[in-house]
């Protein structure tokens, strides 16, 4: 069961901040497909070019394998300060 975290406007859009996705997706692309099936609008939002993905608190690009304990965070454009 991959644990998914949404930040900023993605959280408002989906209506949740943290969720476990079962059955366990084997890869990030599989997880994205599962999220799209669950909520097409969210699926589109996390596919936007400005959204970065961190797996277990490390930024990743492209597809990566996921473990049952993986924490996957979708990070929309950032702004601090």
């Amino acid at each position, binding site marked *: 069961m991959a644990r998914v*975290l949404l*930040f*900023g*406007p993605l959280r*408002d859009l989906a209506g949740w901040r943290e969720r476990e996705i079962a059955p366990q997706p084997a890869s990030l692309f599989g997880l994205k497909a599962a999220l799209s099936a669950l909520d097409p609008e969210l699926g589109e939002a996390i596919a936007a070019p400005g959204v970065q993905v*961190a797996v277990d*608190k490390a930024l990743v690009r492209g597809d990566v394998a996921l473990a049952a304990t993986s924490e996957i*965070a979708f*990070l*929309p*454009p*950032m*702004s*601090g*300060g």
Partner: protein
Amino acid sequence: MTIRVQIDPFEPGALLGGFCAGRSESGAVVSFTGLARAEHGATAALELESYPGFTEAQIARIAEDARRRFGLDDLLVVHRTGEILPGEAVVFVAAAARHRRAAFEAADYLMDYLKSRAPFWKKEHGPEGSRWIEPRAEDHDDLERWEKTPL
């Protein structure tokens, strides 16, 4: 080098005082304090979100980069999250170096990074509703200055 992300309010003067105390070889300390603006009533509060653990690690990475790049003696970054009222401090950065140019450039560089690349999400609450803030075009331009000019 200290990086802190916290919900509790902080007083920028107390941070600068502590950061300067006991330094006898750093000739220059530059600080930046970011305050929440009231926008003459248009902003009632800011809401800042971080990704605990990840946010600190990402800032620490860029802070270490700045320390080496500018030859700093020391560096302090404190960033608030949660609800922040107008006039309260959102972020504090201080850089200590032997001479002033390095300290100015390091603080400037760190702020450019924090404004558009650090893992924070910022929502503005006002009488007309709430909205998420994205970096301004100037913030992206500011950050690009450093990519164009290798030091």
